């Protein structure tokens, strides 16, 4: 491989890595959208609960505060209780839908990010590689990598928490149904730990991969900091 081809190959690798950083950087921005969607769904869930509880009080249900569910209404004083209980359960659908919708939204936005615009320049060969290196804004690139690292880590944490909530919701009904046969008290802490455990077990490979990516971003930043310092201070003498 000629020296010129080596330079082009290296610059191609560099640009491909920076494209990936661009995606991660966008992910950090989309995280805000994702959190807004989730928070909005939680607000909807609380208002739904509130509306159902108000309806229950107005319909003559006996309601009281008590752990583990903060506000409980029994159906002893009214009819049609199954329908009302089902309506109360629907409130959990809001965060579930928001989680799935949020992941879809982030995924769709990520796919729309333009990458590979440097390929045309690189088709020129070595001169194109020189052009790309000359036009690089190193400070901004290093800032982007920093932001990407934080965004990527937080996004992954939010994703795990989201899956945790999803697992909690999915397991809630079988759990309540199951313990009603055993005639024991409802303990949501057990369900929370159980669902978290399941999510961690099922996503352990993903966890390792994501941790590896954060390390890779660290490593890329280290390499590029060294390269930009050297390249900026160096002077080509004709």
């Amino acid at each position, binding site marked *: 491989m000629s020296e010129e081809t080596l330079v082009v190959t290296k610059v191609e690798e*560099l640009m491909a890595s920076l494209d990936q950083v661009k995606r991660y950087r966008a992910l950090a921005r989309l995280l805000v959208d994702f959190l807004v969607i989730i928070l909005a769904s939680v607000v909807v869930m609380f208002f739904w609960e509130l509306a159902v509880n108000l309806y229950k009080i107005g319909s003559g249900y006996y309601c009281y505060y008590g752990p583990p569910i903060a506000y409980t209404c029994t159906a002893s004083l009214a009819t049609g209780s199954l329908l009302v209980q089902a309506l109360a359960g629907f409130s959990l659908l809001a965060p579930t839908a928001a989680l799935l919708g949020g992941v879809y939204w982030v995924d769709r936005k990520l796919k729309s990010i333009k990458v590979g615009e440097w390929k045309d320049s690189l088709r*020129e*060969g070595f*001169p194109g*590689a020189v052009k790309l290196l000359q036009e690089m804004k190193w400070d901004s690139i290093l800032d982007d990598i920093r932001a990407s690292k934080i965004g990527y880590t937080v996004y992954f944490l939010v994703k795990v928490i989201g899956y945790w909530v999803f697992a909690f919701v999915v397991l809630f009904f079988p759990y309540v149904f199951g313990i009603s046969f055993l005639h024991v008290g409802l303990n949501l802490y057990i369900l929370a730990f159980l669902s978290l455990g399941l999510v961690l077990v099922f996503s352990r490979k993903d966890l390792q991969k994501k941790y590896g990516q954060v390390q890779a971003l660290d490593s890329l930043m280290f*390499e590029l900091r060294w390269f930009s310092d050297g390249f900026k201070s160096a002077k080509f003498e004709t």
Partner: protein
Amino acid sequence: MDSSQPSSKPDLYVVARIVNVLREEGPMKRTQLSMTTRLSYDALVRYLEWMKQSGFVLLDDDDVVHLTQEGLQVYDRLVKWILEYVGRLRFPRLAP
């Protein structure tokens, strides 16, 4: 730097493009070189003037631009100089 304004510090990319074309396609007239390098004729003339003064190219009586041995050596030095920096980079694999 503005590629149409070569000064004491010209754009390396433009110089590399001119040398690369002359090296791969041989001597050619300025008008043809302007089209092949996709540089405006005026910008090319300014660059060629600088390159001629630096001894990288020669212009004969028929207005044909020739790459000199020195021009070729400078280009090779530029390749080596960039490879010295970029060649040491080790990229981690970033998953899509």
